[in-house]
């Protein structure tokens, strides 16, 4: 059966005379007859379910009208007005819309406050007697999670969750329908769907995607097409007949609840009802059956684990155990190393990231919450919450705008009692670790038994077949000769008897042994063949990367070896590079290393040149200065670019420092003294810093005064240091006049230094009128001019 929802409330209220800017929900009390009449018109048009006029009846939205203390009254009045219109078979859905604010980390509203706001409204709707809760038009999955949790806490009545997607089939905060459905079904949504933002044509592919991944019935409430603004009125163009035609397509795509959103009227609903009532039940797609694949998600990505999916790599590096720097980073609250590890592991090929905040002495719940929030903004890989601390687990699960994997749930009673309800509440999957109160089972058969106990308890707690990842448990091969064999046998038993996806922490096997990488990679290959789906490993290990790539090919996850070939076939570029001939002369090699900006390579070359008896002057003049001149010319002719010039300058500096280190008495001759400053009122200093770097590494003595420097200070410094050149920089039109003022002050003080000016907005003409001696368009130009000034 297909159920028919009603259509737009706002459009109908405007037609009934609701003044612009007036609180629509206030009419539940002030004009209940109008509200009832609108509901009645939808029921008369065929709606099975009507939605209360409570879309904005939450505390935050009502604050705009000073009505924040009327949440209960306005929601109750709305349900009464709806009930007054109902026939014997009409159902009432309590409409719950967004708060209008974004939840941390996307916004500044806390998850707990959002939860409280929804709890308050949904309680009022529930107690007033709605038949179901409809959470709708949500663009942030975290807001939907807060609302769904609140609804589940308030009532056992069905909860419908409808997100709003854009033309790219994602919410504007990045969630696609597959990911949304995966998260919401696991959290206990009864119906999942989409409404608003788009017309039925654009929502059709979203319904199709939903129907492929969720066992829940699907709801859809499209706008009456894409709106236009005509005479300051928002007009939705789609006529009822066309809406009905689309409703049929939506039903055939899998929608079981169909209604309308913005711009739809009772006529649209009538057309929808007539279109779908003729559809034969046998033509409708059947609901998906549960399978044993486990899906995990971030806010914007879903990853599947299971025998029919490619191997999933769980990065193990965000774990402070035995890693002092990472532990200190977490304890200090910086989380810089945590973020670096996250990004680096993703780049190295990790699909999921294990997150462990087990630093002794810190508040692990706070650390986990922060880490999960920050990582959810940084990477789209789903996260694995790795903790033994119940509070840390709940903090992490609550903060995560996705479906996490809990690492881990053992068969120990206290772990089962505390972790399983949290997994159910927050819709997380669990990693089943076969450890019981009796300790670690030695044999594969015993591990299978313990894992079955965990799964049994999990089913009792309400978890479902798609909620498990089984750990085969690896002991250390150095301590237990059968460790590898039993783990492999466990994987095979899991596959044979249970069929759920499997995992294990690979590197345990090699603990205490040399060349751990060889053992880990070999064991990984064996385990993948035995049925391992998601190894937990160090993704940076190159040998492991080769093994995984080769295994994907051999196990049929890399058709025709395409990925393998892309990664391992020699490229023409590397071949070309191999052909490069190395200059024989060491001076020539240094020059070339500077030009190419090879900072690290230049140091041993200079050391070697000195050993070969070349004087520092020869190295400076024939290699370093020649190289910088070459770079400058290449820049001037557009063959070399600023970052390359800077790399050359850094290499030049490395060369100078090496000479100085090897020959401490080596005297360097300064080409001249330059005072540099960004003028008063101007806080931009990138360009000035670049000029300073280039001048310094071309042999000038640079006194960099910094940014926002007053004319007095510049004059004083120029006189004190007997400057040969004063370089002034201004970035904005508002600070440009300070160039004139500073030059005038220098001249008034009798300073003989030549002035060079530059900066984004400066021009040669402006420099002339400001009485500057020269204008430099860029850093290389500034060096050329400075050299010219000094040679004169």
């Amino acid at each position, binding site marked *: 059966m297909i159920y028919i929802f009603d259509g737009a409330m706002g459009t109908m209220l405007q037609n009934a005379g609701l003044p612009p800017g007036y609180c629509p929900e206030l009419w539940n009390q002030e004009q209940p007859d109008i509200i009832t009449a609108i509901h009645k018109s939808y029921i008369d048009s065929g709606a099975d379910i009507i939605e209360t006029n409570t879309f904005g009846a939450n505390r935050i939205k009502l604050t705009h009208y000073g009505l924040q203390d009327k949440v209960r009254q306005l929601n109750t009045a709305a349900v009464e007005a709806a009930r007054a219109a109902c026939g014997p078979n009409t159902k009432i859905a309590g409409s719950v819309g967004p708060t209008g604010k974004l939840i941390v980390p996307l916004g*500044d509203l806390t998850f707990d406050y959002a939860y409280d706001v929804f709890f308050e409204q949904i309680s009022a709707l529930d107690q007033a007697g709605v038949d179901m809760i409809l959470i709708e038009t949500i663009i942030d999955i975290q807001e939907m999670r807060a609302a769904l949790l609140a609804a589940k806490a308030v009532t056992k009545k069905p909860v419908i969750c409808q997100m709003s997607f854009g033309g790219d089939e994602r919410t504007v905060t990045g969630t696609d329908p597959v990911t949304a459905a995966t998260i919401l079904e696991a959290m206990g949504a009864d119906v999942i769907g989409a409404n608003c933002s788009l017309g039925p044509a654009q929502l059709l592919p979203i319904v199709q995607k939903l129907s492929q991944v969720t066992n829940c019935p699907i709801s859809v409430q499209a*706008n009456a097409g894409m*709106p236009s603004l005509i005479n300051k009125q928002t007009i939705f163009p789609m006529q009822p007949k066309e809406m009905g035609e689309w409703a049929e397509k939506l039903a055939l795509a899998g929608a079981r609840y169909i209604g309308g959103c913005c711009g739809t009227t009772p006529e649209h609903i009538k057309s929808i009802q007539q279109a779908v009532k003729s559809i034969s039940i046998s033509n409708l797609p059947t609901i998906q059956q549960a399978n044993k694949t486990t899906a995990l998600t971030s806010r914007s990505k879903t990853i599947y684990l299971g025998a029919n999916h490619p191997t999933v790599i769980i990065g193990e590096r965000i774990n402070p155990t035995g890693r002092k720097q990472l532990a200190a980073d977490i304890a200090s609250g910086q989380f810089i190393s945590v973020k670096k590890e996250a990004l680096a592991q993703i*780049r190295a090929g990790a699909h999921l990231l294990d997150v462990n905040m087990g630093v002794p002495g810190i508040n692990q719940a706070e650390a986990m919450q922060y880490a999960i929030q920050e990582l959810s*903004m940084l*990477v789209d890989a789903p996260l694995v919450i790795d903790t033994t601390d119940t509070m840390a687990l709940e903090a992490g699960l609550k903060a995560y705008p996705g479906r996490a994997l809990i690492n881990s749930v053992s068969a120990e009673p206290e772990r089962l009692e505390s972790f399983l309800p949290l997994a159910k509440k927050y819709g997380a999957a669990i990693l089943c670790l076969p450890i019981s109160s009796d300790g670690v089972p030695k044999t594969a058969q015993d591990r299978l038994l313990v894992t079955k106990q965990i799964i049994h308890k999990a089913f009792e707690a309400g978890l479902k077949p798609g909620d498990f990842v089984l750990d085969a448990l690896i002991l250390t091969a150095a301590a237990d000769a059968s460790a590898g064999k039993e783990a492999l046998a466990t994987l095979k038993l899991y596959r044979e008897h249970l069929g759920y996806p499997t995992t294990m922490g690979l590197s345990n096997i090699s603990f205490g042994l040399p060349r751990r990488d060889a053992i880990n990679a070999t064991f990984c290959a064996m385990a993948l063949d035995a049925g391992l789906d998601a190894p937990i490993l160090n993704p940076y290990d190159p040998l492991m990367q080769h093994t995984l790539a080769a295994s994907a090919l051999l196990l049929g996850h890399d058709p025709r070896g395409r990925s393998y070939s892309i990664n391992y076939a020699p490229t023409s570029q590397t071949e070309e590079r191999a052909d490069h001939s190395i200059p024989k002369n060491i001076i020539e090699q240094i020059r070339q290393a500077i030009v190419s900006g090879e900072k690290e390579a230049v140091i041993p070359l200079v050391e070697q040149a000195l050993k070969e008896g070349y004087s520092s002057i020869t190295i400076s003049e024939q290699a370093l200065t020649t190289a910088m001149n070459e770079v400058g010319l290449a820049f001037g002719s557009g063959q070399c670019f600023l970052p390359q010039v*800077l790399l050359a300058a850094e290499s030049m500096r490395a060369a100078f420092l090496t000479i100085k280190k090897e020959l401490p008495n080596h005297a360097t001759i300064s080409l001249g003294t330059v005072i540099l400053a960004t003028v008063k009122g*101007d806080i931009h200093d990138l360009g000035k810093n670049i000029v300073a*770097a280039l001048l310094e590494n071309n042999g000038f003595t640079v006194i960099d005064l910094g940014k926002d420097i007053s004319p007095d200070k510049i004059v004083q410094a120029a006189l004190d240091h007997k400057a040969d050149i004063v370089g002034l920089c201004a970035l904005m039109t*508002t600070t440009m006049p300070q160039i004139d003022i500073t030059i005038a002050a220098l001249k008034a003080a009798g300073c003989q230094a030549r002035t060079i000016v530059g900066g984004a907005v400066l021009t040669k003409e402006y420099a002339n009128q400001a009485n500057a001696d020269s204008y430099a368009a860029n850093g290389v130009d500034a060096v050329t001019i400075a050299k010219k000034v000094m040679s004169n």
Partner: protein
Amino acid sequence: MPIYNPIIKNLDMNELKRYSGLTKCTEFPQSLLDQACIEAQIVSKPKAIWEIYDYDPISSTILSPEPLHLPPTVISKHLANSQKVVVIAVTIGTKLEEMVSEYFTKNEYTLGLLLDAAGTTAVEIAADQACELIKQQANKEGYSPLFRFSPGYGQWDITVQPQILSLAHAEDINITATSSCMLLPRKSITAVIGLTATVCNAEHDQDSKCDQCQQVNCLARKD
């Protein structure tokens, strides 16, 4: 309006190259570009805030509680068909610019320059994401947003910055202006986005961004 913290999961490498003057460069160490990207992602704290106002195109006035009259330059022409305007402020915070300075102090000029360019890329991405949210909300009411137009471009005097910040409620995300009207943090953007009843020509809008700018020596200028 709510505060929105955009997500930056990927920095566009082409934009990073453009802002650091490497568009035409074929050989440059990828590791340095990657490092700049990673560090920018890690230290950026993107935040956006905006407010929507009615707009009177005849008098070129933003109808805020204290109306703001716009000069008869490109900005007024740009907004000629707008019925409303969004005044927006976006930042990635101060940490990145501090790191850029640290790199220069440590004589790692190249990373300093690249990180600065990555910061520019990041704040532009943050602004793009905020604009996407605005666009979806505007589209629901039948409006189409024009491309964002910032003070300092197209002869729109930068001295309007304090008023624009005020209209966007930028103090709520800690953006301020110096006495010379520069934004603090430096990696911040303010802009006005016109909302029209008609669909704008997006391609034309894209092309016109560099055309409106007088900084002919800019590293990032598009040909």
